[in-house]
């Protein structure tokens, strides 16, 4: 059977390939996971995806969905060959329905593009990943990604009302409805969110949107130690203020940020907390006052940014800081492993301390930053890529970070996904629940063709 001819018949001759250079370019995402597909296909619509799935299911060909390939856990990497479905070309914003507080989109729409389209109408889609400028919404949904505003607004799963999903056998279902709530049966929408392409291919989504807050303020508070910073976050939340973002930046991260964009000039400190407060003008002022009172006895400095441009500059730099470590040491490169742990909020100071000791134990520089307000820490490890010994240390340190987070009642992935990079921790973290996941997987994808080798299922 000539598979490529069949694939080209479905999507058109220019949209399916076996060209070695394409297979090579689609063999990785941002993680260290590699797997070369046999075919790359760029479908244009649901009907094509459905036909592709029917064909793949019949012949037992693995199918791995991919958006922009910006994932950090190998979720979009074809471990067992087969087809990589590049969905980035299905990128229409289908409907902006302000009266119903929702939008309908195709999976390939870039996150920031949606918010740029919503802004003039006074609305926004709150999840705010660092990869906003490049990640697709399909990928964000499939990984239940989130970002900096989770502490107040929750994660992507809180905003998905309905998904059109092509199932393993090619059938097409809708998991929800246009209503803002529904109690009709199993919540298949939430089942699909975060399923990383192992249960079906998302071809459309209806997302809830919110009105943009009238006012925003960013406060930068500097601290001598990360533990002091962690204490302040816990105290702020228990004082009744829920910031719209609450980010921690350790000393190295601040140095990297300043190197990436000297304009933002964040003062050097053991740790810095970036608070963003939003709401009406009055409520923002009130919240700022509380944050100031909480910070004052513990902080070594507080700076307030209300100018829109200054705030946007700080956030833009923060979003991309993860990759910017080479700016201060050209021989060190960020490697995305062990980078996405989450712990219960009150365990943050302890986790920060443990990360420091892991850094010393394995002699690795670890820049720690992340969404401290929701317990999500990004531990950014950097190595000389040409030094094999450092690679070994890196894997050992990542393993220890993962196990420590689980020990504190946390998770190995708060927002980047499990993929295959973290699948070996699923049993440890989820226990017997993993067996239920495996049963669901077998029921919906009996031939195991949807993104095999991921999630531990």
């Amino acid at each position, binding site marked *: 059977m000539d598979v490529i001819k069949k694939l080209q018949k479905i999507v058109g001759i220019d949209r399916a390939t076996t060209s070695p250079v394409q297979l090579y370019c689609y063999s990785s995402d941002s993680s260290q996971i590699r797997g070369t597909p046999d075919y790359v296909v760029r479908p244009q619509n649901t009907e094509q995806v459905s036909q592709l799935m029917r064909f793949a299911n019949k012949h037992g060909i693995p199918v791995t969905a991919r958006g922009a390939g910006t994932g950090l856990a190998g979720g979009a990497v074809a471990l067992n060959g087969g087809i990589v479905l590049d969905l980035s070309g299905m990128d229409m914003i289908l409907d902006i329905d302000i009266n119903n507080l929702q939008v309908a989109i195709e999976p390939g729409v870039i996150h920031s593009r949606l918010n740029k389209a919503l802004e003039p109408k006074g609305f926004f889609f709150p999840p705010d990943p660092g990869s906003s400028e490049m990640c697709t919404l399909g990928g964000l949904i499939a990984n239940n990604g989130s970002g900096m505003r989770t502490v107040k607004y929750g994660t992507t799963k809180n905003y998905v009302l309905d998904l059109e999903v092509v199932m393993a056998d090619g059938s097409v279902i809708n998991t929800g409805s246009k209503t803002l709530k529904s109690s009709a049966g199993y919540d298949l929408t939430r089942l699909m969110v975060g399923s990383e392409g192992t249960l079906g291919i998302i071809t459309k989504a209806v997302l809830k949107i919110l009105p943009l807050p009238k006012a925003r303020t960013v406060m930068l508070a500097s601290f001598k130690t990360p533990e002091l910073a962690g204490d302040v976050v816990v105290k702020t939340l228990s004082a009744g203020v829920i910031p719209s973002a609450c980010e921690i930046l350790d000393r190295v991260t601040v140095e990297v940020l300043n190197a990436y964009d000297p304009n933002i000039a964040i003062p050097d400190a053991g740790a810095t907390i970036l608070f963003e407060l939003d709401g009406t003008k009055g409520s923002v002022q009130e919240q700022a006052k509380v944050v100031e009172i909480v910070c004052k006895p513990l902080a070594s400095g507080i700076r307030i940014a209300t100018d829109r441009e200054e705030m946007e500059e700080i956030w833009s730099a923060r979003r991309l800081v993860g990759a910017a470590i*080479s700016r201060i040491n050209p021989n060190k490169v960020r490697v995305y492993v062990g980078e996405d742990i989450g712990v219960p909020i009150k365990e943050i100071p302890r986790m920060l301390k443990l990360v420091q000791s892991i850094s010393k134990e394995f002699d690795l520089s670890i820049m720690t930053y992340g969404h401290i307000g929701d317990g999500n820490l990004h531990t950014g490890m950097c190595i000389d890529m040409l030094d094999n010994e450092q690679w070994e240390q890196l894997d050992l340190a990542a393993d220890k970070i993962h196990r420590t987070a689980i020990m504190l009642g946390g998770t190995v992935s708060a927002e980047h996904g499990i993929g295959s990079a973290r699948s070996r921790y699923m049993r440890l973290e989820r226990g017997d629940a993993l067996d239920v996941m495996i049963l669901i997987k077998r029921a919906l994808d009996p031939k195991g063709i949807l993104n095999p080798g991921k999630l531990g299922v």
Partner: protein
Amino acid sequence: MFDLDLRSILKCVRCGACRSVCPVLEEIRWESAGPRGRMLVAHGISQGLDVDTDVLDSLNTCMTCGMCKQMCPAGANPISVIENTRRQLVMRGEMTEAQRKLNERIIQSGNSLGEMSDRHAWLGGYDGVIKETAGYVYFVGCLGAYRYPESLVATFDVLSHFDVTILPDEVCCGSPLNRTGFESAEMITHNAEQMHKVHAHTFITSCAGCHNTLIQNYSGEFEVMHVSEFLEQHLSELELKRLNLTVTYHDACHLGRCQGVFDAPRKVITAVCDLKEMKTNRENARCCGGGGGVRTGYPDLSLALAKKRLEEIPDGVDYLITSCPLCTKNLIEGGSDTDVIDLMELVRLAME
């Protein structure tokens, strides 16, 4: 042994941030047509990936516009990796037909167009007024000399009032060769010798490609100024009149993003008329679609990108002003409804 700088390639952490800015990827959509894909391809080649047509297309569809380099959070430099990889492949004899022909043309004729006629033909009316020595040399460039004589005349009309001459025997600056993987040492030596002959210390350019190359690939013994930078210093001496025009300005990638010349052309423009910016401008300006050998090697892609740039012209402008003849050519051929003229032609209008 394939001599690629592995460390430069490995700087790319494959975060994909460059996907959001690469105009070619936006057009072609396959991963291999974006900076991240090209970095992977460069890495692949160093690990033994076979070089086929698709590999050459991946590397050669880069316009070297520098958007990716500018925004890369990791500080990677895809342009340098891509140009280096092109060079390594050319050394192995692996290149596209368009690359091979371009190289042959330049070697045979001394210019990128393969013209065998007199490079100084545009000088017609200036016979006898060319200074034998001067501190500044107006480096005219191939495209200007053979395709846009009127803009060279406009430029030289202004510059000849100052301590400026031209090289008696100018040849191509080497830009098309450097961008597409070839060596240009002979051209560089030849032009440098000519500079010594006229005792000049500074090149004045009116082409973004020449400008970038004279800075990047020459030894650094000569200063390089874009004509707008020179004029900015002499605006008060020129007695320019105010024109009742509103124009927009296209930032050439190799002049703006690559060499940071943004303000001087704007100062010259606003000295003579009103300026309305294009949708993307300065550091974020989209490429005209012509750079990096794409105009020669992939004309359809190049024109499609030119059309996208033309969509960014604001309403109600009389001219689209450029400061590079390659941009001028590509934007005109891309079907501009607005007249496209060189900055110096605008200045000339203000001197009449």
